[in-house]
């Protein structure tokens, strides 16, 4: 027997062995117990299959990957179909369809025909090319892209542009300033101190402006302009480094979650 046959068979045997280990033979509801055992066993095996990708691509990873793709695609399609079409659109389109699909009819809403019509236009792509109406699908594309572009322009201008400007333009460059003498005699390096406050405001104002200069396209980045733009990219880089460092924590916690599952729920090593 070659490896192509041996590996799947061996895996199935190991899987069933594990399943038996996890199966609670004293359970009242044996089908429920079987399902519980199956969930834990399969979860653990699939976890290991995905981890095996770290070593290299292999049949186990391929198995998990292909299964994942198929099942998740179907999952999102079913969820989308039931919640967006059946529960959302149908009850406003036709009493007959609503009844057939067990949904309460909620009254006609003509505007739900718009997406349905555009959706059907999209499906012209599925018709044979000889019909030559596939181009109708572009209407839908045009509709979605244009209306979301129109919506996003204002929303983004407000949230990303105006609100960022308005929260930056209120920073005094000399906070709590009562004179140079006071500044020197009360010099304080603590976090809430005047010096740090001042430094922070300067860094934000200078950082924002130099960052914007870095993004400037229509002027060559040379001379003083180049120096400011250089400062801008430095600020960006410090930030990127810092964000990267900050993220490590969260990523490791995900691994901890997985390994805890493996050790506790699956292998039962720790309690």
């Amino acid at each position, binding site marked *: 027997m070659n490896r192509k046959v041996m590996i799947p068979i061996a895996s199935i045997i190991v899987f069933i062995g594990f399943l038996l280990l996890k199966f609670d033979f004293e359970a009242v509801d044996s089908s429920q117990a079987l399902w519980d055992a199956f969930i834990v066993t399969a979860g653990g095996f699939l976890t290991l299959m995905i981890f095996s990708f770290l*070593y290299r691509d292999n049949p186990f990873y391929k198995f998990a990957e292909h299964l994942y793709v198929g099942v998740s695609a179907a999952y999102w399609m079913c969820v989308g179909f039931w919640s967006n079409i059946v529960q*959302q659109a149908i009850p406003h389109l036709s009493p007959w369809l609503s009844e057939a699909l067990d949904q309460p009819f909620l009254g006609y809403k003509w505007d739900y025909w718009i997406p349905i019509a555009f959706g059907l236009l999209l499906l012209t792509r599925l018709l044979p090319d000889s019909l030559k109406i596939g181009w109708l699908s572009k209407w839908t594309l045009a509709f979605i892209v244009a209306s979301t572009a129109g919506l996003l322009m204002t929303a983004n201008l407000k949230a990303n542009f105006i609100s960022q400007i308005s929260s930056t333009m209120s920073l005094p460059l000399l906070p709590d300033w009562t004179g140079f003498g006071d500044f020197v005699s009360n010099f304080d390096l603590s976090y809430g101190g005047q010096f740090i406050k001042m430094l922070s405001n300067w860094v934000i104002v200078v950082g924002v402006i130099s960052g914007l200069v870095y993004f400037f396209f229509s002027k060559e980045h040379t001379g003083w302009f180049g120096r400011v733009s250089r400062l801008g990219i430095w600020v960006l880089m410090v930030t990127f480094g810092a*964000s990267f460092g*900050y993220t490590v*924590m969260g990523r490791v916690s*995900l691994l*901890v*979650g997985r390994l805890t599952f493996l050790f506790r729920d699956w292998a039962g*090593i*720790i309690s």
Partner: protein
Amino acid sequence: MIQALFLSPVFSPLFSPLFSVVSHGLGPVFSWIFWILFVAGVGWVFWRTIKGREVERRVIFLMMGLTVAGAVLTGIVLPVQETVVVRNIFDTIENLEEGDKVLLSLDYDPSGAPELQPMAIAVSQHCLEKKLKICYMTLWGTGGAMIADVITAIRPDFPELVYGEDYCNVGYRAGNEAVLKVIATDFRKTFPTDVSGIVLDSLPMMTGVTACPDFSYIVAIGSGRPGIKEWVEYVVEPSGALMGSGAAAVSAPQLYPYYPQQMNGMMGGSKGASEYEKMLRRGYPKYGEFRAQATEIMGPQTVAHVFLMLLIIFANISFFLAKKRKGASA
């Protein structure tokens, strides 16, 4: 015998400030084996670095896996330092009055759960200790399961809770930002019923709640879009509701700009969660260390951090050595 040796007064004080070991781990013998292996592995990587060889990525993967696995198995717990950003949330809830309503939005899925679920649980426990009323909701389709898990986790501590009076779950509505836009002014328009179809008006705790600002405090715990940013944009800014948040470590830095104006506090990643757990533990000692989920995660995280820092240092040593060698040969 061996155990007694490791637990002897000679050794334990040496390490007690560094870390302690929780009861469910594999015990001190294993911890020693683990630390020896860890040091040996790091030493080996260092040796290769000195000899000017790159460390292969698989070796890094293996070391990383062993480090975290070892730390999980030993159950290391490290001391936590509190910060004001987290304390603000704790204090806000601490200062609310009995019967006040809190809206808890869990906008994440199982991948965010290791970091965020502990926050949701700790905040829920705190609210219930203060006899506040909690309304759960989610903007993520997968969030319903998260809410169910949180409720299952807190129920045993509060057996007397009555659904509809002390807490309720309005569940998920599709529409992302649109949901927020609407509930900022009209809660019932989007959530006419709770998750199981009960009309909201028939739940005693929801009388008087017409819009988001009717909640004394909103805690949005989220890991992406729609999440905290959307809460700020579509609820806090237009309606002026008081909000605190819990963010995944990855998105926390970019949410800092909203603190303290738009949200009065933020828990960032498991670090923030473990801080909250610590505060909770101090105020309500019945929440022991063993039940603090985020605190448990912190140990392995820190060990992984040490490893990563060492890797970066080694990488730079090897880089400079290589440069020097190149300079010498040229």
